[in-house]
């Protein structure tokens, strides 16, 4: 992927000592990192924490940035690792991710509780539940690889680098996720198509 000129200039400025130039990278890439993090972690609180941690790690590692690749891809790789760390941490904390209400009480976050998009409305409520169950049945690695492939348009090479896998293993991970989703959704999709 080509290095974006604005990103390259911002990185060079930060490396030259202009700390505020990092703001440009934050403004340009926050949303895409948030989207990725939300899809991987499944809730806003964790996604927001991943965004913060991604930029902190990126800033710390900026001297290791290779100017041949794009900043977006590089940040995406860091975000994926932050999100995986976050999910590993959550495994210790509870079986299901929880966040706090304004009054301090904990609530359970569920993918199915999100407001459905117009696309999702084309499937029945039952099908949507099946999709949520299927998404939850994916391992952390499968969900991350699938999100990178399906929503972020990352190549198998990019996924393999982010997940520290071989390219073949990355392809297999995406495929396992697709198989699980397909098994769960195919009956509903075929019914809707009739």
């Amino acid at each position, binding site marked *: 992927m080509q290095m974006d000129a604005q990103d390259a200039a911002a990185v060079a400025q930060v490396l030259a000592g202009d700390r505020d130039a990092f703001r440009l990278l934050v403004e340009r890439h926050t949303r895409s990192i948030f989207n990725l993090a939300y899809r991987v972690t499944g809730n806003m609180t964790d996604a927001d924490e991943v965004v913060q941690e991604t930029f902190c790690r990126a800033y710390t*590692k900026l001297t290791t940035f290779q100017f041949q690749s794009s900043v977006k891809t590089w940040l995406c790789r860091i975000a994926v690792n932050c999100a995986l760390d976050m999910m590993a941490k959550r495994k210790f904390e509870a079986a299901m991710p929880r966040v706090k209400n304004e009054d301090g009480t904990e609530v359970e976050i569920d993918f199915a509780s999100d407001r459905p998009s117009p696309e999702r409305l084309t499937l029945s409520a039952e099908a949507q539940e099946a999709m949520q169950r299927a998404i939850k049945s994916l391992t952390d690695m499968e969900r991350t690889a699938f999100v990178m492939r399906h929503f972020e348009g990352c190549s198998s090479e990019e996924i393999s680098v982010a997940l520290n896998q071989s390219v073949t293993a990355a392809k297999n991970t995406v495929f396992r996720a697709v198989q699980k989703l397909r098994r769960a959704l195919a009956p509903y999709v075929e019914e809707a198509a009739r």
Partner: protein
Amino acid sequence: MNHPTEQELTLHFYGDSGNPAIAEHLAGCAECRQEFQRLSAVLAAVTMPVPEPVAAYESEVWSRLRPRLESIADQQQAEASVVKFPSRTARPSIWTGLPRWAGMGAVAAVMIAAFFFGRLWERRTPVMSGPGVQNASTAAIRNRVLLMAVGEHLDRTAAVLVELENADPAKSMDISWEQSTAQQLLDDNRLYRQTALEVNDKAVADVLDQLERVLVDLTHQPSKVSESEFNDIRRRLQAQGILLKVRVIGSQVRDRERESRSSNGEKQKT
């Protein structure tokens, strides 16, 4: 060509098959075309909607991030400085309030950055090093940074090994978390081992070398293992006594790091 497999069709859906013969085959094979359409319909239906953050989310992220970046920069400068080295116990941590996983990862990253900054600085400023004084200081910092980073690394590794040691295997076990953690540790481990060799710290390098083989072994297992497979992994770990070695060398590394820190303090007083 033969009928493409489901995996090949999946790669084709994402434009990642790298095989133009699949498109040609689909054009001529109604059965595969129908299969591809079924696959495409399912994948097109998969959505994971993301709630829209507030309008000024980027500015809000930046305002929270900026003080943290300043702390990181200050920390890096302090650790790269030859005048003063921060004490982990005496100085309040910049990671206070952050989750433990974030702190550990970032501390390791800062350690590595500081370590290599030290090496780079040393290479670039041979003239300023004076009669051996500057080089000696830089080498001392380099060793101390390595010891601190390795100490943290061994603590994290021991935590994973303890998880495996204490796990109660059911009929099948999902060890994907342990594998994912082992993979991250493996990358750090290679770097630390290489560095330990460069500074001739053979004892540390040997344990890291053995640890590397253990971590590689762990990452190469299937993510779901049967009870007997899991017990095999555990037996191999126990046979090597790796957890004990990690704890012993970790303790030695921390002692050496404390000695190094206090000896640096003495030198500065004089």
